[in-house]
């Protein structure tokens, strides 16, 4: 097979775009797992809710893309916090398996409800006017919106990393995971902090949902299709590692893009093959801490 350099660089860029979604979603998962020790299988459903909330805001209230970028994660984040308060907090001290099963069940219920009302074929959501059109880069035509997705998610990823690893609030949070009793003794409201963190993780998922609404269709199963790949990304990157999940997200997007160029039939399995290899060589993930 002859390699066309132009086509190859285009595929790399496209991979980077998909990587942005993987990074945003796996970041949310990593935050939730790292701080709450919950394997959040409802993440895909919450991502889907983000897209749907954006759709509702536009079609029921006439609120466009830009406000939705803030409002939708906020609304879904509150929904997530309610889930955490009413259900997840009671199983926090139990084995991971319980959290996994509970969130998996929640995901099925949320998806089922949306599917009952909206079917499976999806709803259209237009690209905002300011981001329409594209730039000719010579080797490819880059839609402005896709470029925006890459830059915006990079900014969000780095901001989240900064918040958790470099600020006082993040330090409290990490301390609370390490030893909740001691941190409470300093007068910090740990349960509230945990709830807010879950809200943040969920908000990140919803944000990814809003970002993807104009590219993919807004449909009930959009999260179910994506979440499995994202879990593979998290496993490869190392559960709970913030920077690890960001880097792995972008890298795997690129690797997947290359596969689509060289051997398209394997493009939806390549991530899992990598996951198997990583698990065999380094079970805690590329950047993971040992459990």
């Amino acid at each position, binding site marked *: 097979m002859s390699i066309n350099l132009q086509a190859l660089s285009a595929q790399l860029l496209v991979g980077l*775009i998909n990587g942005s979604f993987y990074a945003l979603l796996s970041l949310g998962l990593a935050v939730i797992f790292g701080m709450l020790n919950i394997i959040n299988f409802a993440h895909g459903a919450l991502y889907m809710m983000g897209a749907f909330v954006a759709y509702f805001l536009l079609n029921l209230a006439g609120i466009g893309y830009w406000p939705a970028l803030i409002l939708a994660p906020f609304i879904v984040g509150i929904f997530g916090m309610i889930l955490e308060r009413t259900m997840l907090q009671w199983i926090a001290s139990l084995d991971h398996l319980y959290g996994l099963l509970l969130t998996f069940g929640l995901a099925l219920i949320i998806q089922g409800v949306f599917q009952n009302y909206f079917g499976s074929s999806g709803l259209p959501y237009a690209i905002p006017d300011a981001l329409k059109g594209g730039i000719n880069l010579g080797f490819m035509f880059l839609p402005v919106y896709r470029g925006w997705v890459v830059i915006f998610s990079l900014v969000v990823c780095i901001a989240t990393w900064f918040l958790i690893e470099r600020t006082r609030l993040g330090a409290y949070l990490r301390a609370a995971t390490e030893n909740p009793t001691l941190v409470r003794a300093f007068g910090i409201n740990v349960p509230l902090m945990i709830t807010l963190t879950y809200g943040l993780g969920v908000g990140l998922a919803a944000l990814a949902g809003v970002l993807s609404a104009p590219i993919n269709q807004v449909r009930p199963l959009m999260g179910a299709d994506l979440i499995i790949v994202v879990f593979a990304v998290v496993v490869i990157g190392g559960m709970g590692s913030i920077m690890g999940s960001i880097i792995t997200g972008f890298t795997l997007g690129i690797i997947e893009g290359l596969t689509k160029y060289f051997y398209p039939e394997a493009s939806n399995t390549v991530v899992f093959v990598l996951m198997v290899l990583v698990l065999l060589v380094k079970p805690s993930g590329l950047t993971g801490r040992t459990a």
Partner: protein
Amino acid sequence: MMRDRISASLLVIAATLAAGSAAWAQDKTVKIGSLSDQSGLYSDVGGPGSTLAAQMAAEDSGLTAKGWKIDVISGDHQNKPDVGANIARQWFDVDKVDVIVDVPNSGVGLAVNNVVKEKNGVYINSGAGSSDLTNAQCSPNTVHWTYDTYDLAYGTGTALTKAGGDSWFFLTADYAFGAALERDTTNALKVAGGKVLGSVKHPLNTADFSSFLLQAQSSGAKVIGLANAGGDTSNAIKQAAEFGISKNQKMAALLLFITDVKAIGLELAQGLNFTETFYWDMNDGTRAFSKRFAARMKNNSPPTMVHAGVYAGLLHYFKALEAMGGNSHDGAKIVAKMKEMPTDDPLFGKGTIQPNGRKIHPSYLFEVKKPSESKAPWDYYKLVATIPADQAFTPLDKSTCPLLKK
């Protein structure tokens, strides 16, 4: 003496057989299994709507008033051939189902085809596209009602090639249906004077088509043929517009359902040419049915052509049963009767079923309306050309069905 005894026993046997056939002649129970993708990417095309169409066919047949008992059950094959074949097997063995309808997804459709043949049931397929169902894989128990890949390929492939789109690049769903559709379209466009520059196979249920679209773009082909269905088609069209591809290259959706047009939105879908055999707004008959159907659908959507095929196929099945005076539960015999009788229903008009199981009716080349032309919800199509029934499907002399060689 000996001879008397023999004739006496023959008489007994004859009497028993007569009693037996009289028993089935009075058997007026029918069980319909609507097997579909109930929750995945084809569930709007078939799914619960097909079950509703089957129920409506049972009600409209008028058989219940004549003392028949008709049950409709449904199953979810999850787009997995093994799951579909297992459900079909269980339906015949345990639930005593007589006829299986719908079954979108050619992979599952072909698997179920074998089970129905083995169990001597009746199979009225409306949802699957592969033309193999009435060619290499044809069966005396199968009627392929609504459309197939030959029909789609001939309608859209020929029309676009003749309109100047003589070089093609395919984006093909990587399973039985995609392969069949690409093959049939390639044949059709070569006959019309076109050529194929390349193709790329993508996994079923792909969310992001940008890589594949870029490959299609760099091929320089005039037409990008989408040999896929449902959510895959709408994603590809939407993203082609985003990458500015649809400006220079024409997108050909080889299989497009009305639910896909809604998902894409008229803004992006306008001008697309595609082939279907049914549209709700064709005539009084289709409109009346669609109105009743939509009123009972959960989101008031009109029937897709797959739903229409389930309804019309079952109406014809009921006519055959009535003509036979009862349900013999002998699938091959009932299908033979269905092939013998001309078909006539409000949705597809008059037609016939060929000896290979292919239902023949006209096919239509549609174009998606501009947003300004659409006057009502679901007012999406305008008719460009009608392909007569005798041209729309594989000519009998070209069919590779082994049943024809008898």
